[in-house]
């Protein structure tokens, strides 16, 4: 599936993004060309303000590009309606945010169930899947806790469980360990890289830290809204013969 000659899962051509208008306009992305194949584990790096999050949000269909084309699985995302993009997010994409973005005053279980609610699954199946996902991230005993009753690492794991429960093909993680200490960071990274290894989930992650980027097989550096470098580690070829 990771045959480099096959058409890539994600293909960006000349993607630009401008914030604001007129004099205040700011070009956050200045023409991004990028191919990512199914099963890859990519780290996006770069200085603060370089446009990493902007790029991730466009990749995750949370935001729309100003120019260029974005093909996901040979679908032109720019030509989709708002609702079609919602359905793409629902059925194919998962997102993990730096700031978790869990629903407050809502139990871990209900938070993880949320994406399944929109798939019209029965109550029993929702519960089973959500509980299993929380179990998988090591929170089997915290199903009833609300975010306020969980540590930062536990909250991030709830967010990961929420992203995983709908079995996405592609998982986007914007600084998933940005708020966590080093021990927790390692736990989370082990979890993510296992998902990539064992379930073949395509993983795209933004990070500042070289340690964290070291878990990925491919590192893309962004500078002032342009790709500055794109390097693969040898493991990539090893992991995907």
């Amino acid at each position, binding site marked *: 599936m990771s045959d480099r000659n096959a058409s890539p899962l994600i293909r960006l051509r000349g993607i630009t993004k401008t914030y604001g208008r007129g004099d205040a306009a700011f070009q956050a992305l200045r023409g991004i060309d990028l191919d990512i194949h199914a099963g890859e584990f990519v780290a996006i790096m770069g200085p603060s303000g370089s446009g990493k999050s902007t790029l991730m*949000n466009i990749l*995750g269909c*949370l*935001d*729309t590009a100003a120019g260029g084309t974005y093909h996901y699985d040979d679908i032109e995302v720019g030509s989709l309606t*708002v*609702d079609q993009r*919602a*359905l793409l*997010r*629902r*059925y194919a*994409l998962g*997102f993990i*945010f730096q700031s978790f*973005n*869990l*629903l407050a*005053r*809502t139990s871990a279980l*209900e938070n993880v169930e*949320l*994406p399944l*609610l*929109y798939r*019209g699954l029965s109550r029993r199946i929702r519960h089973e899947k959500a509980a299993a996902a929380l179990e998988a991230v090591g929170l089997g005993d915290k199903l009833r806790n609300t975010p306020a009753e969980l540590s930062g690492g536990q909250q991030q794991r709830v967010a990961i469980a*929420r992203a995983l429960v*709908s079995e996405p093909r592609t998982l986007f993680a914007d600084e998933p360990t940005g708020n966590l200490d080093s021990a927790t960071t390692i736990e989370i990274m082990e979890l993510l890289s296992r998902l990539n290894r064992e379930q073949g989930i395509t993983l795209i992650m933004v990070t500042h830290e070289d340690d964290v980027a070291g878990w990925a097989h491919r590192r893309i550096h962004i500078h002032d809204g342009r790709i500055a470098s794109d390097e693969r580690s040898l493991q990539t070829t090893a992991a995907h013969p």
Partner: protein
Amino acid sequence: MIWNAFLIAVREIRRNLTRAFLTVLGIIIGVAAVITMVTLGQATTRAVSDQISKLGSNLLILRPGAGFGPRGVPGGSPNFTMEDAELIAEQVAGVAATAPVRMASLTTAYLDEARTTAVTGTTPAYFQIHQWTLADGRFFNEADLRRGAAVCVIGNTVRNELFGEKDPIGQRLRIGSTVCEVIGLLASKGQAGMGDQDDTIIVPITTLQRRLVGRTSDHDINMISISAEDGVDTEVLTTDITAFMRERRHLQPGEDNDFHVFDTRQITEALTSSTRMMTMLLAAVAGVSLLVGGIGIMNIMLVSVTERTREIGIRLALGATAGEVLMQFLVEAITLACVGGLIGMLCALALCVALSGLIGVPFVFNPMINAAAFCFSAVVGVVFGFVPARSAARLDPINALRHE
């Protein structure tokens, strides 16, 4: 999908009970206030017009004096005569009957119970004109009138005060210094805006003139009750009676009337329209309170939508469509508004029953105002719950998530 939205909505309501309670409270107060005020206002209007109609229909009352204001001042307008009453009945077209009335306030006593009562001396036509009916016994008749018989018909209050539970018919009641036989008991008319109508004793006018108070002049009639024939315009009749009486009293053109004609229908209309105005005023006040309630709801909803834009962003990011998010908010708003409206209606019902008992008006359930208030609350809840959510659901997910 609607069921799904309903489930999500109920979850969100349960999660934010305080917010839900505040929203609902605004609706409850508004709905309850409007329904209560309008219902009570209408009950009062009805009570007033009911009681006035008991005074008699097509009833005109002729009194000496220029109208409202001090009556019977010394050297004031002269009273009427018995002949005035007879001639009005005979000569003015459209008059069905007349009854001369002479009033006297006299001490009445039965055994050792005594009290002062307004005694009315009149003719048998009076009962019909004033629409009195009997609870027991009989009215006095023309024969009693001719003889000046010592008989009387008493009202329910007099019966209660003097006879208690005892059957008053055939009992001997002392009025002034004369003993009269009670021959009839009037059916109660209750309190009508103008005092207790049941606190009365009615005797033949001849009895009053000859036995009870004596007679010093022909002009001893305080009032003439006149009933109009059916279908006669009482305004025209008032004019005719006025012209007739001016002639009988030899008033020169340009001279003011020294008597006046009350048209009870006009009084009814005036009172009914003023209570109706009161109702409208109350309704307006209540409407304002409903509006204030609505603004309260809008406020809470707006604040909560700001607060909930992130929630909307999360839902959108997880793959909800804008339509699904909106459906959730719509169902939430409708649920809250309906619950509030229903509780408000129940509160209003309880308040109306309690208050109408307290101020002594009949309680009449008004489905119109209940429906109107309920619909208004639903619309307010839905509009204010829905409109702010709509703008949030239109955002790109990332913008909703970034919302502070």
